[in-house]
């Protein structure tokens, strides 16, 4: 997979990774020769077994770590407001209220609460938690905490949101609900999403492109386009089309696992 894949349709490019290697400790190859082109408005899933470097890829894109070789570049550059992140845990500050947690990205850029109150409440409204703005995280359920985390990631209206297995720790009912809501949210704010998951179902339901990765060393095995139109809802989840994509993604994943074994 050395060729750069074209993004879907004629979307302008947002970000590209070119032949990126990441080696830890001098000998642990977490990622080998990864190339990825992210278009504006894409929903890309990185799908693969543990240790395939999908989280490493996210950390590289968010500039927390730097490539050993290769490069990552944003078209036209970016600043800290262009990126939102959701981790596997909700990662909220327990001492702060829901509204204060969502305020954080603005606060770190020197904005007072009064200045951005409308944006904070709007973000909370989008995730359906405006009534809980004065609650503390410990008063919320796991799914609600994750919603706060998502509200925080999108409050600055970033161009790109990175999500690292955000729903892996939730029960399936909550996960389906949040999958549905995530698509609505993405449509509402029109951002790009790079989503890490090890669930085939989740990746097919959410994404328009699935990047299948393999482990040891972490690398891209294949890319799969999910050509079903948005908005997708429960009907899509039970359609024959969905089942066919699941089949293809599962095969691709098996191939990736087979190569690794």
């Amino acid at each position, binding site marked *: 997979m050395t060729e750069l894949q074209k993004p879907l349709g004629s979307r302008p490019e947002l970000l590209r990774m070119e032949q990126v290697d990441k080696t830890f400790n001098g000998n642990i190859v977490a990622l080998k020769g990864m190339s990825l082109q992210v278009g504006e408005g894409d929903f890309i899933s990185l799908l693969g077994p543990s240790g395939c470097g999908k989280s490493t890829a996210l*950390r590289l894109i*968010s*500039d*927390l770590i730097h490539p050993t070789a290769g490069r990552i570049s944003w078209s036209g550059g970016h*600043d*800290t407001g262009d*990126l939102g*992140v959701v*981790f596997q*845990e909700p*990662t909220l*500050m*327990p*001492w*702060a209220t829901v509204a204060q947690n969502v305020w*954080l*990205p603005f*606060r*770190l*850029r020197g904005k007072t609460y009064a200045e951005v109150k409308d944006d904070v409440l709007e973000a909370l409204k989008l995730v359906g938690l405006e009534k*809980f703005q004065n*609650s*503390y*995280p*410990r*008063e*919320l*359920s796991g799914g609600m905490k994750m919603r706060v985390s998502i509200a925080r990631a999108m409050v600055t209206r970033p161009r790109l949101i990175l999500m690292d297995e955000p729903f892996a720790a939730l029960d399936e009912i909550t996960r389906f609900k949040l999958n549905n809501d995530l698509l609505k949210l993405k449509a509402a704010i029109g951002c790009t999403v790079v989503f890490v998951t090890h669930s085939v179902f989740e990746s097919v339901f959410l994404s328009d492109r699935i990047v299948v990765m393999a482990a040891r060393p972490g690398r891209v095995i294949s890319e799969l386009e999910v050509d079903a139109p948005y908005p997708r809802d429960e009907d899509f989840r039970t359609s024959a089309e969905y089942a066919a994509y699941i089949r293809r993604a599962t095969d691709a994943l098996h191939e990736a696992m087979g190569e690794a074994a």
Partner: protein
Amino acid sequence: MSLADQSDQPMTLDADEAARLKRKRFEKFGKWILPVLVLVLMLLIWDRIVVWNEIPHYILPGPGLVFETLIKDWAMLFEALLVTVQITLMALAVAVIGGVGLAVLFTQSRLVEMSFYPYAVILQVTPIVAIAPLIFIYVDSRIAGLLLCAWLVAFFPVLSNTTLGLNSADHNLRDLFRIYGASRWQTLRFLQLPSALPYFLGGLRIAGGLSLIGAVVAEYVAGTGGLKSGLAFRILEAGYRLNIPRMFAALILIAVTGVIIFAGLSFLSHMLLRKWHESALKRDP
């Protein structure tokens, strides 16, 4: 404590729940009544031992005599108590400023931490009674000497707990702060200090008791009397005069002071953490 379980259903109690409520009610009263009963019993036994064995008051005074002395000598003892409390609170304040200040410095610079942490440990493990005489040789001001001794005893729990707390901020939150381009100061102010608060408060409760101990021990070593004498000096003085009832009275005052400091700091801790920290969480059955 989730927001979802506020139901308006009528009360129905099964046997388990009834037993649990009964146990809860018993614990609520027992917590206060049982220690008071024990106290009354102990005082009674103490009193009877003294009376039945006709023990002279210069060997073991009865509780009644101690109480009488406490009232009779109240003016003098209270003045001494104020001196001791003053030293204790000042030492605690300096311990907090020094402990938190050093902890912040340590977490901001690995260089400073690696250079000085071992010496903080050495200061801590050397017994204060061994250092105190030296301090009173070199420090002219008695108050300053007492303060220094009490501080040496009290600052370490604040330092080590706060350092632990500052370093235990959630790693994903740290990453998030980095992604959002937070400055060092912002990370300290909005992430590390709040994370450290429960740890700091734990250290503070220990430091409160230690600063009282430090103040009392330092005064024993300093020894000199005069107008500004604390409770420890009054105990020594009363001992020389075989005024045992006054020794007991002063001892009671020190113990009560220690309890009040601990209770006050526990209350402060509860007020600061009650909204969000696990330790202050009321658990559902």
